């Protein structure tokens, strides 16, 4: 099984590598365009539809510091693809190097079960859950800023913190009434 391992390669100098996994392959493109505009550190963005990544460019691929799963709540397929991709990730990644990003959470047509399922997944894996708005440039910019914050910690660019320490502060928690029916 071709697992993506966090520490199997040597790290790069003054650079941060982020992998965006999205089934629809739309939001990741706009995120990537804004991410590379970061000037203080060299950000390498790799895009993928799902894991496992092809073996051919395994040699040229740098060490991935942060894996972000982008889930669109309006499609069931998005969530399933993310779930299956999780199996191809080495457990070492889940100590702070994985992040979930959810789009279209405010859409009225989204049933609450989807969001609950994503929440439960993120909480069981102790990963942070970010919400993003992908239609406006402002939304993309703010999502990029938040990702950059987590990325800088995961790439060890922040002197006093490691990804593991940050994960204790940012992990997703379940509200106690998540299994009860909501108001509407």
């Amino acid at each position: 099984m071709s697992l993506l391992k966090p520490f199997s390669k040597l790290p790069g100098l003054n650079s941060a590598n982020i992998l965006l996994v999205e089934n629809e392959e739309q939001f990741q493109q706009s995120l990537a365009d804004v991410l590379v505009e970061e000037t203080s550190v060299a950000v390498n963005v790799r895009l993928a539809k799902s894991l496992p990544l092809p073996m051919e460019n395994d040699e040229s691929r740098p060490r991935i510091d942060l894996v972000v799963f982008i889930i669109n709540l309006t499609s069931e397929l998005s969530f399933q693809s993310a779930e299956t991709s999780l199996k191809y990730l080495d457990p070492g990644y889940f100590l702070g190097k994985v992040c979930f990003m959810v789009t279209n959470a405010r859409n009225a047509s989204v049933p609450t079960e989807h969001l609950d399922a994503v929440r439960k997944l993120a909480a069981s894996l102790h990963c942070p859950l970010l919400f993003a708005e992908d239609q406006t440039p402002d939304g993309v910019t703010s999502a990029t800023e938040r990702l950059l914050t987590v990325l800088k910690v995961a790439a060890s660019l922040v002197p006093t913190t490691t990804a593991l320490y940050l994960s204790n502060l940012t992990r997703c928690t379940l509200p106690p009434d998540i299994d009860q029916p909501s108001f509407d």
Partner: protein
Amino acid sequence: MDSSGNASHCFPMDSSGNEGNLNRKMKTVALNDGPAPDISTGQKEMSPGDMLRIKQQMSNQCFEMAVQVQADKSKRSCSTSEADRELPDYISELERVKTLHFNNTLSLHRMQMWHAVGEKLKQSDPEAEALKTVTERCMALCSQIKHLQQESRNLQDEITEIQKTRLEMKRLTHEKMRQIEELTSKKEHADREKYKAVLEKGQANLEKYKKMAVMTQNVLRGILLACKINWLDDPSLRDIAMSLEEFPISD
């Protein structure tokens, strides 16, 4: 750049990895383009700040890898609930150590700064003059502060004294009031005692005379009945006999 078309024949159908490297910095380009053994000529000049930053990044990365290695070495089977229980303790310990380290660093910087200030004051250039005037002003303000604090302390002491005397007055007043109440209640009680004795005696006398009256009436009734005196015709005799009936027969 890989295209998804090439990948499909080697791998399972859902893993079409489409990757794009979008970095535009010169450093990385220089590293990738051709075998350049002398890396420094292809990059812009690295400032000491940059080098320190990179050094910190590397030490951080080494730390992470060391943690991972150690975790792999000491793999023991423990349940997640047990780990969850111990986690807050570890986190608080970590935070405690971090704040301690931070405070120590702060005090170290403070000492260094004061040493530098002291060294500066020993020289006599315009900066040192400015420092001296500032220091003198600080001293003046500090002595004023001390003076004011002493005054406020004295005032506070006076206030406490006055409160104590007031409390003492209140206590004495309460005592006096209590004594007065005691005396008044005692006097009433004594009067009532004498009065009660007289009252009882009077009542005993009343009972005695009542009994005597009743007995006399019974005797009179007996005589009237026994001698068969006609008391209806004589009005004064009739009055007496009628009054005999009204008097309750006490037993």
